[in-house]
């Protein structure tokens, strides 16, 4: 599929299939179309050409919003300024299930269990704006779990999160993936990405590599995608 913002082509001729239960990392330089691709995959944008299927259904026919848990880059939600308790934010995961009906006791229990699962049950009554970056991202994962999502789509979830919390966060993602949840993740840090995901899609407008992590590390995809003169974000090991 291909997608352009006006004249600027962001994603070109990308074709990929995400296997159920996989843990896919999207990587590429800044402005390489990672977020655009993620948005195309979950239906936030429509491709100019090509098509997307979610869980085997064409995007236009896809109605089961609760099957996708989406955690956007931190700036797009209002958790900084809007007084919303953590419990309320997690309960949102039940909204697609409830439709126009009321949120019941069962929904509250599912939300409470999701909060426990991500380890922030004691923060339920705090305004989400008062949480640390890592805790806040856990709250959004809890929202996805409350939604009983089969697919987690995460856009650079640990930007601005300290190193220890980040490690814990990724360990939690590993556990969720082991439990059968498919995860698509954008992460700019190659080291931490390759440590956790089982497959990698390397992107710079076009798809440079898509395969398991081992084959990605052996390939030159990253150097090609970032360009020979481009700065590779991979950390240097002494």
């Amino acid at each position, binding site marked *: 599929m291909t997608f352009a913002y006006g004249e600027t082509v962001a994603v070109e001729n990308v074709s990929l299939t995400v296997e159920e239960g996989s843990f896919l990392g999207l990587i590429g330089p800044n402005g390489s179309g990672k977020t655009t691709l993620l948005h195309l995959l979950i239906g936030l944008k429509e491709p100019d050409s090509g098509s997307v299927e979610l869980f085997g259904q064409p995007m236009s026919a896809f109605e089961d919003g609760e099957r996708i848990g989406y955690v956007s880059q931190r700036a797009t939600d209002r958790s900084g300024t809007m007084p919303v308790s953590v419990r309320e934010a997690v309960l949102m995961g039940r909204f*697609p299930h409830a439709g126009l009906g009321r949120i019941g006791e069962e929904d509250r229990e599912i939300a409470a269990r999701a909060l426990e699962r991500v380890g922030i049950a004691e923060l339920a009554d705090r305004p989400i704006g008062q949480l640390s970056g890592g805790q806040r991202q856990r709250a959004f994962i809890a929202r996805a779990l409350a939604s009983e999502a089969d697919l987690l789509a995460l856009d650079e979830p640990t930007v601005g999160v300290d190193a220890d919390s980040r490690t814990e966060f990724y360990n939690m993602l590993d556990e969720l993936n082991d439990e059968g949840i498919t995860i698509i993740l954008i992460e700019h840090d190659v080291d931490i990405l390759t440590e956790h995901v089982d497959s990698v899609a390397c992107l710079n407008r076009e798809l440079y590599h898509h395969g398991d992590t081992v084959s990605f590390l052996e390939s030159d995809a990253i150097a090609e995608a970032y360009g020979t003169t481009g700065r590779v974000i991979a950390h240097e090991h002494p």
Partner: protein
Amino acid sequence: MSAEAADETESVGTRATDSRHAAERIALGSIGLLALVMLGFVFVDWLRQLGGPAGAVGVAVFEGYVGAGGALDALLGTRVFEFPGTIRAVATGVLVGIVGPLVGAFLVHRQMALIGETLAHTAFAGVAIGVVVTGLTGLAGTREQLIFVAFFVSALAALGLQRLTERTDSYGDVPIAIVLTGSFALGTLLISAFRDRIAIGIEIEDFLFGQLAIVTVDGTRMVAVLTVAVVALVVLNYKQLFYITFDEQAARVARINVGGYNSLLIVMTALVVVGAMQILGVILVAGLLVIPAAAASQVGRSFRETLSLSVIFGQCSVLLGIFLALVGGLPAGGSIILVAIAVYALAVGLSDRSTNLSVH
């Protein structure tokens, strides 16, 4: 701190939260009751015109309301509440004091604070169009007809504005400024152009600055209907409105009809603005939507609590503002807004919040 001391602090904190929630519930309950009493007044005001046995009941209950107003006068040493016109104005105030802040709480957090102001100005254009149309077609051009036209023009403008902002991809200042000034320009031009040709039976200033005395029987009835409709719609669609306000992208992913709910919110805003405009005037009406919600956001710890506090703060401002206006012979719009700002200042003072709300 020892574990016991920590437990102690915790339980004190829980008790404080519990009593705070209890106080909020009592306040909300009182407002609900007051609203029912006022809706009852609007109902018997309508019923008494029907004639027959139902009309007789209406007249009797209506007299009861007027008597109660007289008793309130005796209590306060005033001579205002014994007049049905005052009771109508108070009823309108109480009802818009609920729906204004209720809708406003969503608008403030969608960073659409000035949309109310814009829609009020389109309503002014609506009034002007109404003046011209009723004048040219030989209708009476009563305030009721004008407000009715204003409802339609404002709702249409709301949808148009939404289209415009969707194309420019955000609720930026520019479309707001264009529609706000454009509709006001249209209104002033229409009224000036036709001033000499048709009789204009109303004072335009009343619409600009609001006037308790211009609240008519039909105007109050419209506000009653729109109050019931807006409260029912917000209750029914609370989850969706909350979700799109908090995280629009995630709401889209969850396959919530974001565009549809945006339209719903903006059309509800248009209706509320026209209803509230009768008391607050075109220029001040946005304050009733924005200021109580901003105050509530300073102290609310959850969105549900913020909504409750918005309505409580809004209602306090309306009641105290109308009272001061009636007793002091002041314009109600100005006193309501100044009371609301005093409540806001108090909330900012009490708040432990470091983040600032952006109200552009």
